[in-house]
């Protein structure tokens, strides 16, 4: 791509509106062309400035009260709410599973068939038992015990992948069962190979500059904390059925690790966390949406997990692009302390 082709597309590139081919082509040009890269950087900084724009606005409870009052006034004038036909209601009842209507209808049909098959099997079994009883009583006059189903799990409990689900009155409680039984899993250090992979690269840091220094003792504690968080998140993920939430949690994990490992680049005066900030804003937005979805669908483990992640995302999103040592340290300290606490809350 040439500069004269690149410039008119720059706005769309910044807006994320180019198709994949054009996007890649432009990105490749920016890597090679200093003047276009400078133009892109200007536009990017401009976006950053607008991202800081804050309106003096609040959505107060009074606003909802006013809306509700007006709705109540309008209600008598509105036609009655239509009740969907039974077929549509049945399909909508399964809409939360994210199946398309056609697939949902197919699933319903399959359920009916399976139910009918089970019913037939039971009927045949009961006929067989009745025949057996009739033969036995005819021949020897002995009662025949009804057949026992084997491998029946105790009611209300099922084991899955080392995580025990205690179902009490419809409640799902996350519990972590270690090798010793129903133990709360504490921070266990990761295996050596993982620890090696996590060891940060040491860079020379000029103590005269305000860079965040490398602190070995904190690093090992942080590693343990992140490992504990990994366990927590892994275990919670086992209980979190929603694939979307699991992917989101994985991304948050990566962000927290990146934030933990961020170091001042040689020659820089402070830590550059602009990437983590941007990621955090995106993830925060997603987190809130998923948390509310979990609330609506009654998925308590997911909601609790997402609740626990939100404060970190908020704090990182609110950092300046080049924050002070203390600002970064305070968040990392909280990550270290509260991840341990969060792990202890797992039951």
């Amino acid at each position, binding site marked *: 791509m040439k500069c004269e082709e690149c410039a008119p597309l720059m*706005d769309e590139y910044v807006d994320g509106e180019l198709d994949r081919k054009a996007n890649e082509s432009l990105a490749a040009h920016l890597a090679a062309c200093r003047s276009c890269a400078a133009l892109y950087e200007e536009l990017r900084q401009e976006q950053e400035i607008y991202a800081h724009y804050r309106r003096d606005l609040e*959505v107060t409870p009074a606003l909802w009260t006013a*809306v509700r009052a007006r709705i109540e006034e309008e209600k008598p004038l509105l036609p009655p*709410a239509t009740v969907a036909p039974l077929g549509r209601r049945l399909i909508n009842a399964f809409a939360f599973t994210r199946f398309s209507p056609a697939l949902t209808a197919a699933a319903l049909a399959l359920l009916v068939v399976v139910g009918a098959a089970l019913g037939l099997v039971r009927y045949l079994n009961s006929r067989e038992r009745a025949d057996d009883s009739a033969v036995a009583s005819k021949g020897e006059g002995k009662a025949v015990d009804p057949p026992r189903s084997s491998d029946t799990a105790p009611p209300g409990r099922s084991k899955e992948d080392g995580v025990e689900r205690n179902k009490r009155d419809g409640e799902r409680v996350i519990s972590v069962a270690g090798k010793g039984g129903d133990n709360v899993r504490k921070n266990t250090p990761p295996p050596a190979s993982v620890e090696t992979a996590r060891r940060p690269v040491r860079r020379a840091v000029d103590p005269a500059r305000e860079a965040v220094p490398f602190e070995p003792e904190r690093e090992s504690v942080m590693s343990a904390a992140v490992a504990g968080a990994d366990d927590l998140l892994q275990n919670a993920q086992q209980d979190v059925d929603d694939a979307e939430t699991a992917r989101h949690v994985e991304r948050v994990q990566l962000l927290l690790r990146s934030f933990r490992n961020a170091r001042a680049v040689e020659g820089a005066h402070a830590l550059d966390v602009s990437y983590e900030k941007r990621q955090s804003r995106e993830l925060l937005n*997603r987190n809130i949406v998923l948390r509310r979805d979990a609330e609506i*669908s009654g998925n308590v483990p997911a909601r609790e997990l997402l609740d626990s992640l939100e404060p970190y995302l908020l704090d990182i999103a609110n950092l300046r692009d080049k924050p002070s040592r203390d600002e970064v340290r305070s968040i990392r300290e909280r990550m270290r302390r509260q991840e341990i606490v969060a792990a202890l809350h797992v039951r």
Partner: protein
Amino acid sequence: MKRLTAADAIGLESRPGAHRGAGTLMNSSEELVTRARRGDDEAFRLIFERYARPVISFIYDMVEERELAEELTQETFVRAYKNLRSLREGARFSTWLFGIAKNVARESLRARRRDGSRICLDEQAVLDLSSDASYAPDGRLLDKELNGVIQGALGALDEDKRLVFTLKVFQQRSYEEIAEITGFSVPKLKTDLHRARIEMRRRISPYLGAGNEV
């Protein structure tokens, strides 16, 4: 600088990224809308909770007055409630809601023009802001003043450019969504957006120090 809160962040919910591949989100909004259509007022309250902030922010950017923005936000949700059943099956609710908000805002602006009561925030007013501007030691304009400068520059755009700029830059809508909300063609909105950016840049640049060059 005001800290980003969860309530602020939910305003970013209308970003295209929040909907792309987000089966959970779309079905949840769809589910709420389906329930609200059947007369479930609690579902409508949840819809309000989800969308009130982005809607009021958008309207405020258009009309530049807080109390008026609150009134018009009320009007938007009341109209949405009344017309829920007219929402096409499969249509994206947030786009439809923003379409209502756009209409409500434009009607208000038209009425103000007719009344002659609009206070134009013109170039002079924007320049006057600079006399009260405070600068941080490194030359950055302090956030409160920058907010005022941005607001002033936004108010100086013509309506179409302000509409498109707000939807793209502040509400993070895709071109396709903006076209649906505004009724503009994609080429027109791209042109308006490009020109809006140039005008905003021109107005804001004089107030930015070394730290905030545009």
